[in-house]
């Protein structure tokens, strides 16, 4: 699925940087019914993780009340050049990944 990741390409060592992620997902709550009265089964992202050079720096649990195409923004300290890896895990075996690199000077 498409994801939009915003990580600064370059940062000064020790600088606080903002990371923003937006991913495609319908986030079906499981509380809605079809016109025929059947429950639309829940289909949401349940967990998001961000790793910075392998070490987990941010994790979030997501719930049915979160809007479709979840947007998450968080901060970290730019310590070294390398890679941010993002992973979204959800219902029905859903899994999606993305990555972005940063150069720290």
């Amino acid at each position: 699925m498409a994801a939009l990741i915003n990580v600064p390409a370059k940062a000064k060592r020790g600088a606080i940087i903002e990371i923003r992620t937006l991913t495609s997902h319908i986030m079906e709550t499981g509380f809605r019914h079809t016109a025929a009265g059947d429950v639309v089964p829940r289909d949401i992202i349940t967990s998001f993780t961000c790793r910075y050079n392998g070490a987990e720096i941010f994790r979030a649990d997501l719930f049915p009340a979160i809007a479709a195409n979840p947007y998450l923004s968080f901060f970290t300290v730019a310590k070294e050049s390398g890679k941010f890896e993002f992973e979204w895990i959800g219902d029905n075996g859903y899994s999606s990944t993305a990555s972005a690199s940063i150069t720290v000077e």
Partner: protein
Amino acid sequence: MIFWRAIAAATLFATTPALLAGEIPPDARRSGYAFMGPDTQAMQDDDTINPGMLFVLDGEALWGRKSGSANKACADCHGDARSSMKGVAARYPAFDKASGRPVTLDQRINLCRANHQQATPLPYESRDLLALSAFVAHQSRGVAITAGDDPQLKPFIEQGRDLFMQREGQLNLACTNCHDDNFNKRLAGAPITQGQPTGYPLYRLEWQTLGSLERRLRSCMSGVRAQAYDYGSPELVALELYLMSRARGLPMETPAVRP
């Protein structure tokens, strides 16, 4: 005699603007963007938080993917969309010579699929069709709308204009009653806009997804308790065409974000 005639003329002159209140002059035309709060505007302005951009990304992938029994991708004929599709959406709905009628961008995509890719048409409001039309229309972002300039479209614009002015539904309201005569006011707390279709397909927060202008028109029709026209019906296409010609000169915003 001259005196009475002058009064009669003055009365006529004074009432004329009210009678013509329907039309919004070009310099008073405002996109729905201008009616939104700063948070929603910020969401549209920043491509990294605009959820419509997710569909544009999907559309870009579809543009290059081979499809149908002709095994051709959009890119095989049209090349790089950044140049070949720039300004195209600002001219749609456009006149289709084969059918002698205007077609919307969604219909053009499906005509291309049928005629050149030998592929099945994509259903209206399906993710793939919205993604493709968002990707194509995104190439026109910032381009001024010129739809309806083709003289062959004139009767269809007239038809759309008539539909726009025609009262319908249990509430007995025409589009013009809100969008020409009462914009800037509020309806149940929500701002009434001029109904300028500058950013379709757009991401509506209420829908939690991207949607077409036809979906928006159908929502308005159920809002006035009228029977909505079917997707792709000549009436909806004519309305879409009239609305685009009415927004002439406004820049395209696709993918816009609306509340």
